[in-house]
């Protein structure tokens, strides 16, 4: 089994915390990992992406071939569409619906949603609202991870361990907040697919 994931967002939105969690879970399961990140100028509010590859077998390329990604996981809706050329025809598009507008020509959000809904396998989720509802506004990224969970091929306990490892330093309360956010994302995705 292998999973190729494009993570996307805007510089400063913290997509690397999602990448780190999936990475830890995959390595804990005994899988290989390669993860190409964007550093430097683009981090200043530009579009950023990370190629995350996890697999049972040795991974060669740090970059995912176009048209081969199993998932685009985006913390910003327009950014999710930027990487469609990478998505396999059976792949999943999982994106936050909360826009990040730092440009004057940001498109009409309804048109963005319409494009997202054209994708056969998609989940559109307001992770910020869900996180706020849990009193955990900083955990929107863990909600996003939860929404993607079902398609990652890695069991739930590995993610819980990964979250524990990443946030353990900050205390049990922070760990629980993030696990709750993750669970809320899982739950939302299950309901969304049923619709």
């Amino acid at each position, binding site marked *: 089994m292998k999973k190729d994931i494009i993570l996307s967002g805007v510089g400063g939105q913290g997509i690397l915390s999602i990448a780190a969690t999936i990475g830890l879970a995959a390595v804990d399961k005994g899988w290989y990992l390669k993860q190409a990140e964007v550093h430097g100028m683009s981090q200043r509010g530009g579009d950023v992406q990370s190629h995350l590859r996890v697999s049972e077998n040795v991974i060669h*390329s740090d970059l995912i071939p176009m*048209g081969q990604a199993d998932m685009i996981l985006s913390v910003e809706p327009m950014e999710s*569409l930027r990487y469609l050329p990478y998505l396999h025809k059976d792949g999943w598009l999982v994106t936050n619906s909360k826009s990040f507008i730092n440009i004057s020509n940001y498109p009409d959000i309804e048109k963005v949603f319409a494009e997202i809904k054209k994708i056969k396998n998609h989940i559109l989720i307001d992770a910020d609202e869900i996180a706020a509802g849990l009193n955990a506004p900083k955990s929107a990224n863990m909600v996003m991870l939860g929404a993607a969970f079902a398609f990652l091929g890695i069991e739930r306990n590995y993610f819980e361990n990964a979250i524990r490892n990443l946030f353990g330093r900050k205390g049990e309360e922070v760990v629980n907040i993030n696990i709750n956010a993750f669970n809320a994302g899982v739950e939302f995705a299950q309901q969304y697919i049923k619709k």
Partner: protein
Amino acid sequence: MQKQLLLGDEAIAVGAIDAGISGIYAYPGTPSTEITEYVHSSKEAQQKGILASWGANEKTAMETALGMSYAGKRAMVCMKHVGLNVAADPFMNAAITGVNGGLIVVSADDPSMHSSQNEQDSRIYGKFANVPILEPSNQQEAYDMVHYGFELSEKFKVPVLMRITTRLAHSRAGVGRIEGRKQNDMSLPSDLRQFVLLPAIARKRYNMLLGNQSGFRSESASAGFNQLIDGPDKSMGIIACGIAYNYLMENFPQGCPFPVLKIGQYPLPVNLVENLADTTEQIMVLEDGYPMVEELLAGLLQRGIKVSGRFDERIPRTGELNPNIVARAFGMADTHGLPSPEIVVGRPPSMCVGCPHIDSYNAMNEALLDYSKGRVFSDIGCYTLGALPPFESINSCVDMGASITMAKGAADAGLVPAVAVIGDSTFCHSGMTGLLDAVIAKSPITVVILDNSTTGMTGGQNSAAFGRVKDIVTGLGVEPEHIRILKPLKKNHEENTQVFKEELAYNGVSVIIPTRECIQTLNRRMREKFKNKAN
């Protein structure tokens, strides 16, 4: 030991710690910065007393590393590809002096110019200097090569160049470590004239370097980083350098049908290349960066074996490789998802909300309304984003420090006033000498030194200028009444604009120093302060 998930840059840093370096020197530059940053913040490195130091520029870093090597200890120096231009003088001459303690020079190239002004290939510098080059294909190899590189450096008493590209530098994978080695004791070179490059000695040293070339080639053939892997289909042989090997194997998950020569070390192992050329009908060269190996093999007249690659456009002439480009080079089915919808618009990087440069540019722009456009020379840093809307404030970005000297040259040609915009770290890197030129010539230029107390673009490393910009400028001879320090804030806009107007009108060198901390480092400091309080 369990594998650690490390960026390519971090793998090199850990390799250096384990290989017993005593010091690492650098000037920050994407994609090389994280090597030195890792050692800087590593507890292990601190316990071992390893020095991690940001120099004023790449040249000072290289020379300091060479000095440490002179004293018998292992040293590493890191920079981005264009940084090697700045350090080219000591780099070229260090090949002639040779080393005492092992010395590895890491240069991180940026094909496709993700964060750079060109995509020059550092391997050409290695060849220029006649030194061995290591080019890892993955993070584990990057780690292993540091160990080997120091052995090689000390065996032949020569600096070794390690060349990586952005994709490896900023990609993470599992890396296994081997047992560390102790640092070298201090010891001077056995010949105390080894480093004295007077012509008579330099000629001798140069001949020694040339004499070592066959030894370097034998190392390339035997060290294990260059491997000839046979394949049944002899219609083509493939040479895959560095990470290009990964893109090749991505396309042949069941194994490549063609014989492949995987290259990770230069000079090229002639016997292995010969073997490949003798057993195959043509050769395809895959290399990230310039077609260096391809050009060597094809030769000017191209009368030997047919060589394919960037020159015959099987691979695009510019830009970094990826799995799709390599698939197309082999005529294999290319894969592609849906096109990105038209409503998706570009999102270029921009200055942060609250960035002091915004207020500086607003004041400068207003003051410049009295003059015709096209007179602002800028430099390399976050403020280069001032070229983009809404500011469109600057008209040049060439190399570190070029703002001041280009402004002087334009003023010499009659463009008065000419303006230079440069950051505090860039000013210390390469701006000071140019300012001295302008002071001596009494050039009618206004130099704006944006002092945000850090090296912002690369993530906030210490700036050599910290707290001393005014003293440096004064020391270089700028008249005290034309050194104007202001605080770039919205509420000071009128006042600041007036200062700009006054100094633009002055017929001599004036220096304006807008001083306010980078919003990123300020936020980071506040977070840390808050965290410490909470504990």
